[in-house]
């Protein structure tokens, strides 16, 4: 194995071999490290961006306050039926939104944990700050590293290949901001490639060599140039790894192209199936900021079974179901868990636009064979005296308790080292 980057570049003659090098500044640290992660365990994060309306996702259908706060939007028990007429009620107090029929079936099989009342102290009503808080697990929102980035720095440094990837987007989620490891993100596999002039294919190796010389230079730590250069190096290295592997994926599952989360989760499946070290995967579905027109309202009459929120939840439910089946088809269903989060719930009191404004605590879904299904946490009261000044509920479970449960119980990490404090185990693992 070549010992310096220069030797590597000379010997590789244009073919970048994955895992032999790390960006310059990491080389020394990486040699001293042995990656600790058990990459056979897969962790998939699904971010629902915009603030999902938790009260109309896991519906407290017996709560009279819920009905009085939402004269237009509330579901009653009779309405909690999926598209095939099956009840989506999961307990004496709660039912799932009718669009979540597939999730309900997984719930009935004991594969879905729903943690109620998740949030944090003094919840902000700003999307951007609240997302930062969730990404960084720091309630000031000012930390620069994401919680999964900190985990990656501890557990994935020195791990070759593509152990962590965000899929389906052109933005890297802040959860993956790390100090040492560069976490790649891939919009789609076809264009994730380093191209040169097709008129002179025999010059390609020279192009790659010169590129790698530039991308292997060492700049001052924490400078813009250093960060960009490390990402540049990682992009071309990872691209060659992706191009060599992902086309080996075969599956009978058909993911509908109009469902963007299904497209993202298919990419997750493709990576998990073809790239053995794939370990942390991240996808997003946006559009949950329903200040208005959360439900359709032809002639001023709300139709809760149609509209934006219904569509997005159906996408979520269908995509998760297809992904679960795909993993089962590949014998991987025992190796994967999914965690859903959104930066906040929405205000219990609906507004006049068939919508809801920014809220606070909400629920989280954690899904997979390894999960002990059921309801966890506790739903906060909607009583007027229990709401804050903005009219939003309190929280009962700190979101970092959920992170800690996954870090300790699934990823085999020391959650205290990652999160900076000890948090209670929620119990679903």
């Amino acid at each position, binding site marked *: 194995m070549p010992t310096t980057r220069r030797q590597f570049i000379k010997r590789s003659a244009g073919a970048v071999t994955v895992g032999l090098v790390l960006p310059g500044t990491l080389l020394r640290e990486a040699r001293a490290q042995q990656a600790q992660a058990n990459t056979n365990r897969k962790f998939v994060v699904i971010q629902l961006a915009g603030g999902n309306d938790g009260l109309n996702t896991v519906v407290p259908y017996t709560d009279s306050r819920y009905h009085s706060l939402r004269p237009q939007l509330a579901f009653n028990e009779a309405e909690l039926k999926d598209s095939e007429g099956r009840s989506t009620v999961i307990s004496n107090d709660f039912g799932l939104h009718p669009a979540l029929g597939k999730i309900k079936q997984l719930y009935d099989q004991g594969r879905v944990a729903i943690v109620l009342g998740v949030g944090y102290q003094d919840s902000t009503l700003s*999307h951007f*700050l609240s997302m930062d808080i969730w990404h960084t697990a720091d309630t000031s929102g000012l930390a620069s590293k994401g919680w999964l980035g900190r985990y990656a720095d501890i557990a994935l440094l020195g791990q070759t290949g593509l152990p962590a990837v965000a899929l389906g*987007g052109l*933005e890297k989620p802040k959860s993956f901001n790390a100090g040492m490891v560069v976490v790649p*993100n891939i919009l789609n596999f076809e264009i994730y*490639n380093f191209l040169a*002039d097709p008129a002179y294919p025999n010059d390609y190796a020279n192009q790659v060599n*010169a590129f790698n010389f530039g991308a292997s230079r060492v700049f001052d730590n924490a400078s813009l*140039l250093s960060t960009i250069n490390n990402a*540049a190096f990682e992009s071309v290295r990872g691209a060659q790894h992706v191009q060599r592997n992902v086309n080996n994926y075969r599956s009978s599952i058909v993911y509908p192209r109009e469902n963007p989360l299904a497209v993202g989760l298919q990419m997750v499946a493709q990576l998990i199936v073809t790239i053995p070290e794939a370990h942390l995967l991240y996808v997003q579905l946006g559009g949950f900021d329903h200040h208005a027109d959360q439900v359709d309202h032809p002639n001023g009459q709300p139709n809760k079974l149609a509209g934006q929120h219904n569509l997005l939840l159906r996408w979520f439910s269908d995509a998760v179901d297809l992904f679960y089946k795909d993993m089962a088809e590949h014998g991987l269903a025992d190796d994967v868990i999914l965690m859903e989060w959104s930066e906040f719930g929405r205000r219990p009191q609906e507004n006049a636009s068939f919508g809801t404004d920014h809220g606070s605590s909400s629920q989280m879904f954690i899904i997979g064979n390894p999960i002990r299904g059921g309801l966890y946490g506790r739903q906060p009261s909607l009583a007027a005296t229990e709401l804050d000044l903005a009219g939003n509920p309190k929280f009962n479970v700190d979101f970092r308790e959920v992170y800690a449960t996954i870090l300790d119980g699934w990823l085999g990490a020391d959650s205290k080292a990652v999160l900076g404090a000890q948090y209670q185990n929620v119990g679903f693992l």
Partner: protein
Amino acid sequence: MAGITYDEAAHLLRRMGFGGSPQEIEALVARGREGAVDFLINYAQVDNRAMDDLIARSFDFSDPNDFTKFNRFELERWWFTRMVHTRRPFEEKMTLFWHNHFATAASKVFDIFMYVQNRKLRDHSLDRFDTLLKVVSEDSAMLIWLDGIQNVKGSPNENFARELQELFTMGIIDVVTGEANYTEDDVKEIARAFTGGKVRFARGSTDPYAFEFFVNPEQHDFTAKTVYGVTANYSADDIITVVSARRSTARYLVKKLFDFFVYPITSSSSDKQTVEKFANVYVSSNHSIKELVRAIFVSDEFYSDRARFALVKQPVEFIVGAIRMLGAVYNPGTYEPRNQSNVLAALSIFLGQELFNPPDVAGWNLNLGWINTATLLNRFTYADLLVISRTRDLSAPGLWLSHEQLRRHTKANPKKTVKKFLSVLGPLKVDAKMVRALSDYLRTDDAGNIGTFTPDDLTVDKKVRGLVHLIMCLSEFQLN
């Protein structure tokens, strides 16, 4: 009058515009620092008829209901055409600044309203801030984007009132003091002041893009509001006057301008002093945006070492900049044949910046927000696409980099050729080892052996195009 060096003028033109040819940079050097800034700011005096004629030939927006001629992709093509061809680059750059500041997106808003908003931002980009804010608050795109038209008495929608403070004027906390600028009650009360705002097609107008704002008295809340501790019967205009006059707004605007045009402002005490210095300009000039940006672009802060290459190029700066610096050709064609002419707008999306469609109301994540492995590979792909765009017909629609233009900068010796292109594309500061590696590339044959450099047609077509691709892939070229 302070002079301006070639590198400083190139820096100024990259920041106030999209960079330019060596001749354009030399012309700014001849004007001196203040002269160069005034030339770029007083763009209304610059003859731009060539671009106007090109736009008139290439686009037909006469009927916004004709989807074949007026749609989002045509809008994006339109703006890219302007940015590549204008002789008033600061007009486009400042419009882009406000588009990012008052980020409104076609993901929710009809194209026609996005176009109307762009024209308004363009017309008022150097106006008094109060005026611009009023124009934006009454703008049809904004009323839809932040649900203003659904904000009615009795059940106010807080969306606009919140972002007005959090993103458009003062920020959640004061840039200098760190104290909270407003409370949740202020959000609710300000929302009430904006209730009842509507737009309609301007009656009697022949301009299909003329819309007028009005307040529906039935839906407006006329009762007293308490804002920042003072109770009065505030109208929407009163609120705009109040927020525009707050010191926090002056500071926040300075920070936003620095983050976009100079360098990211930190919470250090010296940066706070810088913020205060320019906030004073905002106050003393009666909230003139033009005076504020002029003060920034002539300042020593702008030309400091700290400011040089301190920002990451936005995708449109990367795309348009390479064209303008290299003297490449972009012909927009017309709406009709769906040819190569849509390439700039289409690629920009893959670099992370779709004009008229920022990701959310906070705008694009600048600087390292542009950088990740996916967007970097897509930048490299754009560079590849530019250098392989050969043509015998430079007047054909599309993006072209001509052999003659590359030949013009190619020197007899490989090192000088590398240095010339590093200068044209920056000037970029790149260390001697990298220059050596690029110069070796020019001399390396297909078998990987380093030989001699002969600047014949084949070498220009193969190696000099390859060199431009490699320079555009350098991390240094990602910076602005």
